[in-house]
């Protein structure tokens, strides 16, 4: 029975709250439903304010849903909160720490909260794998931001949870930590841990998560295998460099990063049209290339509700 049980199950989860400023009712989550199977590496994506952290807060017991239910390995996060939380290891988004303790004390204490005694071997392994071994005796205040982030990850893993929840764990951290972190998390995932990841780094999500859900304004707008999402993307992308401003006709649909311009291009005809508009404006694009849409393109399409992907999302959700 337990084998068929999803690791995480969100069932019609809604969350409303009253805005402190205006007093207006805000719908943070609206009937969110999906399951995450045991052993999955699942990505939860969405722009700021989409409801990702609200959903994770409900999962972690930091917040209560206005409606619906959330289960972790079959345990309701409210009725069976102790069992549900024992299954969960949550890396919070905020870089928080307790300034009274050293790294090792922090991990021992966190382990004790979960009733895990004599955990030194695993604590040592965590310190080693996350590059914290030489900081074990250092006070939390003495650590850099990146090191504090590593401790947050270690704290979440110290009781060997079945489900690891990472809420934007790589926000503002260097490449070395990202690589260390992902290698370690991928190892735990291979060993059977379920991983739920929220991130704004879509290339990370594309590389790590075989299945993805996208939230927008508190609703699931896409839920699919990452490969299917990419394959069903409505277009390829025409990418080039340009030293001048784009003509208005192209500017409305372009993604511009400095000199680099990316335009959706469904077929050869559309590519030719883009080039013609550029020529007419007297502009000379450089390093023109056509590539397959990546997750960032798909994400933008879904968030802008473009018909091709929106239909896919609707069908799969």
């Amino acid at each position, binding site marked *: 029975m337990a084998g068929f049980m999803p690791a995480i199950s969100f069932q019609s989860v809604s969350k409303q709250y009253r805005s402190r400023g205006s007093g207006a009712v805000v719908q943070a989550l609206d009937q969110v439903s999906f399951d995450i199977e045991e052993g999955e590496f699942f990505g939860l994506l969405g722009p700021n304010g989409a409801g990702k952290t609200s959903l994770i807060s409900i999962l972690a*017991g930091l917040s209560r849903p206005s409606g619906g239910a959330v289960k972790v390995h079959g345990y309701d996060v409210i009725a069976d909160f102790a069992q549900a939380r024992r299954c969960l290891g949550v890396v919070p988004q905020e870089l*928080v*720490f*307790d*300034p*009274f303790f050293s790294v090792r004390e922090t991990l021992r*204490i966190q382990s004790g909260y*979960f009733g895990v005694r004599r955990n030194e071997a695993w604590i040592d392994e965590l310190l080693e794998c996350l590059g914290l071994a030489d900081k074990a005796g250092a006070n939390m205040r003495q650590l850099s931001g990146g090191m504090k982030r590593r401790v947050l990850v270690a704290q979440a893993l110290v009781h060997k949870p079945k489900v690891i929840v990472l809420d934007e764990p790589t926000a503002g951290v260097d490449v070395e930590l990202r690589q260390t972190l992902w290698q370690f998390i991928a190892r735990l995932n291979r060993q059977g841990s379920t991983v739920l990841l929220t991130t704004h780094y879509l290339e990370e999500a594309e590389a790590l998560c075989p299945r993805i859900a996208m939230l927008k304004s508190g609703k699931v707008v896409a839920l699919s295998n990452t490969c299917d999402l990419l394959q069903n993307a409505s277009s390829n992308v025409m990418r080039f460099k340009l030293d001048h401003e784009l003509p208005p006709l192209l500017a409305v649909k372009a993604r511009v990063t400095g000199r680099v311009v990316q335009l959706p291009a469904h077929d050869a005809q559309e590519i030719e049209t883009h080039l013609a508009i550029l020529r007419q404006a007297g502009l000379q694009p450089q390093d023109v290339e056509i590539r397959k849409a990546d997750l960032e393109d798909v994400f933008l399409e879904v968030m802008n509700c473009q018909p091709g992907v929106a239909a896919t999302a609707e069908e799969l959700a």
Partner: protein
Amino acid sequence: MIGWLTLFYKEVLRFWKVAFQTVAAPVLTALMYLLIFGHVLQDRVQVYPGVGYTDFLIPGLVMMSVLQNAFANSSSSLIQSKMMGNLVFVLLTPLSPWNWFCAYMLSSMVRGLVVGLGVLLVTVWFSSLPWAAPLWIAAFAVLGAGLLSAMGIIAGLWSEKFDQMAAFQNFVIMPMTFLSGVFYSIHSLPDFWQTASHFNPFFYMIDGFRHGFLGHSDVSPWISLALVGSACLVMSAVALHLLRIGFKIRS
């Protein structure tokens, strides 16, 4: 079982790591009160027959330190953890509201009692206390520490910023402590203030505690025990209820 013990241990370790501030400083403050008030009033005031002012003052100072520090521990720990965001590490655990309550209560009581013991150890040399009824001393010390620990939990949960906590401390705890008969017997007050003092639960804690040392009190220690015990139960029930509903800590 070990979950709440870990939280208890962490809370004790938290204040012990800054013991200079959390233990030594209040002991020194109490010693200053004794040296100044004791020196000035020793030959001028006799509250009970045959009891010098210093002997009268010391139990009051000890109890005042117990109460203030028990309150300070749970309240400051909670507000600091809320403000710094590290309360999340406890919120994410399987600890039940009862576990939270026991850990915060007991750790705060430990701090209050450790400071009280410290004050007693440094002041007892200036006195000739008769130690009339040690069980009363223990009972009021424990109940008083418990009551203020529970009030500290309530204040820590209720406060959303240090400002509000300071208001609670300065406008509720401090006046109630100072107007409880630490430095005087309520019989030396005008009628109105004598009556008002009977509505202050801190008065009964100090009076009952002092009875344990001197064998004299303004009201029967049994009445004090009943009132302090009841207040402790009520405040504990409120604190536990607030923890159960996640008051201002779970949205």
